[in-house]
């Protein structure tokens, strides 16, 4: 009985972590679909979201602070696209990825010098540090439900946006065939800006909801980006819903490893499984291999 509850506890903590990885992986996927670039600054969006929200929460009520943080970080995402990726048309994908690495370093440094190296956090949305809900015998912080609900709502809304609204469909058209989309009158450049903004907004939202649990710190971005990257690759690039499953798998795997092995080995388990999956399925679980022609282009 007791051990069963423990398993559930670990599982839920894995799902919580995993849902954050899933959100980061969705961000990777949105930008990857629009530009082919893996945006290594994705983790920095999460960090910035938390930082801005903590600062705003000192002056305005919490919901307003959250909305403000998401809006500001989305603006930052759009600006990055307009300042860099819109202008660098002739650069190869690898060069653009390197630029996102540079951006991630610079954003992190800006956060360090704008705020400081201290760890900070938002207040719990409901209850406080010690309040917990009983859930089939496992004790769960109410914030976990906030995280899970936020991620679930985000994923559903994103799905509806991409599937049923005009801008969402234009975005998908632009990623599946840019030249055809352009001929159909879609402004590809603006769609890319939208993808960056959306991805930054989603990252910032994640940064806000996890802030009470994991705290916000200027260096938190890079580890999240690596795990989110792993989740996106595990699911297969180009499919946001696969990214969600990938993220949950990474999170649960990590929690499971923590329950069985020394904590230092949780990343070893995750990446070992990831490597094995990649060696068996070179495009992740749900990724599609792209065809390639031998012609000079």
């Amino acid at each position: 009985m007791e051990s069963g509850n423990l398993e559930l506890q670990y599982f839920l903590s894995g799902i919580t972590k995993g849902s954050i990885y899933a959100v980061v992986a969705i961000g990777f996927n949105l930008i990857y679909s629009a530009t082919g670039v893996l945006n290594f600054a994705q983790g920095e969006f999460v960090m910035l979201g938390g930082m801005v929200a903590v600062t705003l929460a000192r002056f305005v009520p919490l919901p307003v602070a959250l909305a403000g943080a998401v809006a500001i970080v989305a603006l930052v995402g759009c600006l990055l696209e307009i300042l860099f990726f819109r202008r660098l048309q002739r650069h190869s994908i690898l060069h653009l990825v390197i630029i996102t690495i540079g951006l991630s370093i610079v954003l992190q440094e800006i956060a360090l010098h704008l705020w400081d190296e201290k760890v900070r956090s938002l207040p719990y949305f409901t209850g406080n540090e010690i309040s917990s809900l009983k859930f089939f015998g496992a004790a769960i912080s109410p914030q976990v439900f906030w995280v899970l609900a936020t991620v679930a709502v985000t994923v559903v809304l994103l799905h509806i946006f991409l599937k049923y609204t005009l801008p969402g469909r234009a975005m998908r058209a632009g990623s599946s065939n840019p030249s055809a989309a352009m001929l159909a009158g879609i402004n590809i450049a603006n769609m890319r800006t939208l993808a960056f903004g959306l991805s930054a907004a989603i990252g910032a939202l994640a940064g806000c909801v996890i802030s009470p649990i994991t705290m916000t710190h200027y260096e938190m971005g890079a580890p999240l980006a690596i795990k989110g990257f792993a989740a996106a690759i595990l699911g297969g690039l180009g499919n946001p819903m696969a990214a969600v499953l990938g993220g949950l798998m990474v999170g649960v795997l990590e929690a499971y490893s923590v329950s069985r092995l020394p904590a230092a080995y949780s990343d070893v388990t995750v990446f070992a499984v990831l490597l094995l999956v990649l060696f068996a399925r070179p495009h992740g679980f749900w990724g599609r291999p792209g065809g390639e022609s031998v012609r000079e282009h």
Partner: protein
Amino acid sequence: MKPRLKPGLSFTLLAAALIVVPWILRWADMEYCLTQLTMSLYYAIVVLGLCLVMGYAGQVSLGHGAFFAIGGYTSAVLTTCDVSKWQTAAWLGWIKQSPFCMAREDLFGNPILTLSPWVAFFAAMALAFVVANLIGYPALRLRGHYLAMATLGFGMIVNKVILGTAFTGAADGINGVPEWNLGLGLTVSGKRALRIENYFIASGLLLLLLVLLHNLVRSRVGRALQAIHDRETAANAMGINTALYKLKAFVLSALMAAMAGVFLTHYTAGIGPSEAGALKSVRYVALAAAGGMSSLWGVTGMSTLLNYMSLRGLFGSYDNAVFGLLLIGIVSLAPEGPLKPLARLLRRFVGACRPPNAVGPDAARPDNGPARRASDQTQCLFP
């Protein structure tokens, strides 16, 4: 085709420049800079190896910090682990007499018996060779971002295993690595008296590897790698064993990283787990990109310069910010590396003679017409 300096001459010029540096520093009374310069030369070897994989074979590796650490840690563990406690074993009694072992004192003055640095060096290279083959064989079938993730994951595994294992010193790393007597009166050591000697060891090693790579990329192997870089499927169709060539390039560069790790570990007398960190590996890739990726000279120069500046702490707490801004600036303004635009500028002023540092990959294809755009060269990295 534009006239250019013969490679032999440019290497001689580089060697001359490297020899002159310590005298200039001594004259300027800044000899202390040699320590960081030596370290950045060793790091440049890692980035130079990465240049072969990324710039020529067109494959990304975000796991080279791990190979550096495998080299450094193997060497550190073997040369600090006291084997005298196993003396009862019959074979150990024999080994103790052989040149494989070295009796010395540890940091606290206790007598210990450890393996000799040469044994450790060969063990490190062998281990790096085996690991590079084991990881490279399946990973190099992956393309683009998937390969990047696989190598990054490999680096993370190595980093965390080092952090979680007692005999690698966990988070403390390993201290008290002895100096390495190379023979011929040369010793890899961080001692102050040996500063100039060690600078020459590092620059000699770098120069040697630079010449080797320079010749390699102009050989049949180099042309095959370039074909893989430009279009892997086409190279395959032309009868190039792409899998084999990619693996060879990967293993060679992993060995270079491990070698740099061994030398630097003996030089600084220790190694820590951050050497295997993901950020370190990402930084190597960034340095290779900042140097132009397929320009051996540019990569060597940029990585030495940038590493030197950050090791000396020239920018204080803004070090990372400066590195990030430089990286963004160089890669967005001069994706083919800073040397070629500089060379173009120089040529405009000086005239026809091209400076020695502008030897790029297009030298292998003299009939290629005008230098190709950088985006052409790396376009197919992510098909």
